[in-house]
């Protein structure tokens, strides 16, 4: 089985490299290289968006959290409808921005909407950059350690092989290759998810058996570990505090709109008339992966509750323990899905991070490089950021863990004032968007420090819910008293986008 998994990993890396090689023909201009702007159809974008959003955390972390605290995490994962919601709210407006001027990055959208406000672009770009590095390093760390454990090689060797190849195909083909490889990896995730779901129901006999077994098991001990089973694990909310339950529904659902992997794909779609089809592909593929992640958590609970295996040493073992129990085919597909999820998210964040440093931050600081130079700088930065992330992901566990708390909520807090409120409300001023972005960055930094000091917010509310609410409220409030690039000062073309 180990040989088969290694062969599959090699196959996936080789296919990704081939896709990257052929995609370079399309990656000729700045918009294509950085944004894949207006180049692809709904199937490619749908799978690519889902794969970039569903990281290795979804495949490994979500079943683990369901094993640990029940359905609280299920609410997070079951937000597949968010893709449709996101396109209803912002799809046509974001796509329309690509008709106003050259749009290659999110920074270009900021320039168009807020009249080249350099401070806003700088703050938003910095926050996005830190979030990208955090995501990238955590994907590398997770997958390198997982495959190192399987193959008995050092994590650094695995990291260099898997993510070194990823850096190569991203350097060759930019976001065009990134999008196409992510679509391929997304399809692998969906196929693996469907096969594993069938295996789960075949093995357990269905949800009735799982519900009855977990509800009645009580305290299960074995192998030096104990697991407290409870009927509450399988009710709607799980066992975490109510404020966390609410946040795990609200923040990821509405937060899909704030994810760079969703926002940038909105302008990558060739024909805006196909946004409804894109919504269906995105939501449908996410549904399969979400079902796999959620029900695998139930599967792990079931085999422990039934005494088929001892309680797990840690929640992140849930998906692997379950796959080991089912058999070799499940092991194969779990490793395939995890590798695909990690590579797709990592390529997205590598591309975004390098485009921010090569294009957005210099332009925010007043340096405008020629398009050819931007691409050359971006290619060099992809190598630098990619290999530094491999080093950091594997050697600086503590730093990765701290940065890991940057993520979904930070992206939402930083992007919501600028892109969502900014494109939906003509009164949203540049001063307000800047205030919202600064609030998001400041709150995130303060909360990171407070987290290290083991501070807990009243009611157990997660820090990012507070940060998101603060940045949105500040943006709306400041808009009422300022007027930069809003109301009567709004650009005519932006007014047309908002009217669409």
């Amino acid at each position: 089985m180990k040989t088969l998994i290694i062969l599959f990993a090699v196959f996936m890396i080789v296919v990704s490299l081939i896709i990257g090689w052929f995609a370079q023909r399309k990656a000729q201009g700045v918009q294509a290289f950085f944004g894949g702007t207006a180049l692809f159809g709904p199937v490619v974008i749908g799978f690519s968006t889902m794969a970039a959003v569903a990281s290795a955390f979804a495949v490994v972390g979500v079943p683990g959290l369901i094993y640990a605290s029940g359905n609280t995490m299920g609410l997070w994962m079951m937000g597949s409808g968010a893709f449709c919601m996101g396109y209803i709210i912002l799809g046509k407006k974001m796509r329309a921005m690509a008709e106003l001027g050259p749009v290659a990055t999110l920074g270009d959208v900021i320039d168009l909407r807020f009249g080249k406000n350099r401070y806003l672009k700088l703050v938003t770009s910095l926050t996005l950059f830190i979030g990208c590095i955090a995501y990238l390093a955590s994907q590398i760390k997770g997958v390198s350690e997982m495959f190192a454990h399987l193959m008995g090689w050092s994590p650094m060797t695995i990291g260099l092989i898997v993510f070194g190849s990823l850096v190569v195909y991203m350097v060759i083909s930019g976001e065009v290759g990134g999008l196409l490889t992510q679509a391929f990896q997304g399809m692998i995730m969906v196929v693996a998810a469907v096969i594993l779901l069938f295996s789960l129901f075949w093995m357990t006999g269905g949800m009735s058996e799982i519900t009855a077994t977990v509800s009645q098991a009580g305290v299960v001990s074995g192998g030096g570990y104990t697991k407290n089973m409870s009927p509450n694990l399988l009710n709607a909310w799980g066992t975490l505090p109510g404020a966390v339950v609410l946040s795990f529904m609200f923040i990821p659902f509405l937060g899909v709109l704030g994810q760079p992997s969703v926002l940038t794909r909105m302008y990558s779609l060739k024909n805006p008339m196909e946004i409804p089809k894109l919504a269906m592909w995105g939501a449908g593929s996410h549904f399969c992966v979400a079902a796999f992640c959620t029900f695998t958590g139930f599967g792990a609970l079931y085999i422990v509750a039934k005494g088929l295996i001892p309680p797990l040493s840690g929640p992140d073992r849930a998906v692997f323990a379950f796959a080991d129990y089912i058999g070799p085919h499940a092991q194969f597909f779990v490793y395939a899905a995890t590798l695909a999820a990690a590579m797709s998210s990592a390529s997205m964040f590598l591309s975004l991070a390098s485009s921010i440093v090569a294009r957005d931050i210099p332009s925010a600081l007043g340096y405008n490089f020629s398009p050819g130079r931007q691409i050359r700088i971006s290619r060099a930065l992809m190598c630098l950021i990619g290999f530094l992330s491999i080093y950091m992901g594997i050697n600086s566990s503590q730093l990765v863990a701290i940065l890991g708390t940057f993520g979904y909520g930070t992206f939402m807090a930083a992007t919501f004032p600028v892109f969502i409120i900014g494109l939906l409300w003509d009164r949203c001023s540049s001063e307000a968007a800047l205030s919202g972005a600064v609030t998001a960055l400041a709150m995130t930094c303060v909360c990171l420090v407070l987290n290290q000091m083991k501070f807990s917010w009243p009611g157990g509310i997660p820090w990012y819910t507070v940060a998101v609410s603060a940045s949105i409220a500040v943006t709306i409030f400041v808009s009422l008293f300022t007027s930069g690039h809003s109301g009567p000062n709004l650009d005519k073309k932006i007014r047309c986008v908002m009217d669409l």
Partner: protein
Amino acid sequence: MEIKNTTPIHIVIGLCFILITVLCMTGYWFPCFYIATLVIALYMLLGSLRRGKVDLVFFIFPICTFFVCWVLGFYLAQREALLFFDRMPDYTILGFHPSFFWIVLLYWIGGIFILGFGIFKLRDRWLAPDEWEAFRKKMAELNGGAVEHKEEAL
């Protein structure tokens, strides 16, 4: 129906975010599910406006239908969760804990189906092809005659 000024809706949304945070901090987390659903529905209403006009059909389905579906789902989930708190449920629905079943049906599948089917089936009420063409022509006019936007030259 026409909404000439969307500012009040944005202010309501901002207040809802503050309310959600305060209620969660003070332990009243469950009503926040209804408030959050309202925020999502309001954002969809804003996203579907065309020149400030509300398309009544699109407003009823999918937006209002989604709101009702989720509110009902959360209500039923909470009712069954309280009914069988800390004990084995007396019955299951399709094998699921009765509380979780409503989440699967109305929050997960309902959310996808209503919003996905809504935007797909009523796509012309959300963005009609002639509206997009008119937008492109307007952009060409404002950009000085060029219909296609030029790629930045290398």
